[in-house]
């Protein structure tokens, strides 16, 4: 009846203290080290690249600074796709030359100064060689206000010398569109202009032959 272990029925000895100790040690649960199980990515270089791309895209793309002006096809012979035939209408026509901007209505050519019908360039260039767009806007308002019948007219036909730059045409359209941009708006659906500030927002192009 000593303390010495004895064989059991299977003829084997029970686990010795050393074996128990080893089993306890080997079967102990250990927390996996961070990132060991999932193999996490080091995303710092990736984020650097992403940030650079985003900055590059924002710096180069001019998304919010664009706009478009809607126009109709030109027609040869001086007249655009105009619907005006009434001789009592204003029928405003503009010609942009190297000397200035000439305006013509159904009454005739508007003389220099925009006061009466007569010869000469209606709005000569400024002393520095640039077109006087402020005076053009004033003149357009004066012509439109001459008669109540002209209030509904929104079209102008523009012709220019061959060498006139596209920027000049756009600036002309800006100047003759309205004298108060806040009270002249375009309907996004119908593209129709309306408002007290509107002058001649519908521009037709003509080609001098």
């Amino acid at each position, binding site marked *: 009846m000593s303390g010495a272990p004895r064989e059991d029925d299977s003829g*084997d*000895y029970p686990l010795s203290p050393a074996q128990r100790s080893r089993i306890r040690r080997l079967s102990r649960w250990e927390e996996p080290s961070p990132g060991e199980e999932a193999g996490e990515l080091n995303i710092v270089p990736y984020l650097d690249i992403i940030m650079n791309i985003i900055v590059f895209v924002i710096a*180069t793309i*001019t998304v919010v600074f664009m706009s*478009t002006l809607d126009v109709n096809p030109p027609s040869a012979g001086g007249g655009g796709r105009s619907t005006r035939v009434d001789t009592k209408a204003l029928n405003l026509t503009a010609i942009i030359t190297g000397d200035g901007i000439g305006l013509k209505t159904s009454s005739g050519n508007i003389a220099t100064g925009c006061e009466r019908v007569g010869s000469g360039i209606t709005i000569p260039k400024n002393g520095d060689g640039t077109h006087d767009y402020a005076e053009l806007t004033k003149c357009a308002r004066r012509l439109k206000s001459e008669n109540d019948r002209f209030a509904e007219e929104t079209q102008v036909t523009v012709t220019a010398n*061959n060498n006139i730059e596209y920027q000049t045409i*756009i600036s002309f359209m800006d100047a003759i569109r309205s004298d108060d941009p806040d009270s002249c708006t375009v309907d996004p659906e119908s593209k129709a202009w309306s408002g007290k500030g509107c002058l001649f927002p519908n521009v037709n192009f003509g*080609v001098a032959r």
Partner: protein
Amino acid sequence: MSSGGTPPASTVRYKAALRKAIRKNRREPEIDFLNITAMLDLMTIILVFLLQTMASSTQSIQEGKDLELARSFMKGEPSDQGVILVVSKSAILLGEQGEAVVPLPSREQLASSGLDAKYKRSGPNDLYIVPLANALRNARKLDKAVRAAKKLDTSTSEAIIIADARTPYRLLMEVMFTLGQSEFGKYHLMVMKAKND
């Protein structure tokens, strides 16, 4: 395996006891971190998609020496309806991919008589640019199908004209006239918004 004279258990018993102990002590690992690999994959795909979309958008025109947009006080969002036509300093390009249709001569020549007569239908005074009209015919065919699918008016197409600020009026009219002859009935002139003060 023995210590202090105690006979050890057999290897079979020892291993069975070890397996049992391991099973008993095992714990399900807690998910205390986020596996972001899949998310990064997704982010990369979205980024590539966005870059591709923005690159082909009309709103993403990049100015350079060959193309400087005109400035306008016009407000409002740019129209994105229509076939894109770019008139740069050196060529006329068509479509979102910007395929060169006609090379342009010097500005002086363009300002006096427009494009060379060899590109015209009937001599230097004609406004009809034949290579551009040929390219527009295909574009019109495609745009017509697109408009039909969108249930829009198919009788005419629209064009977005992106022209250099120094483009002479003569060339502009030639381009617009050719567009008009190719069943393009409405044009959107792309400009850069200028400050109104």
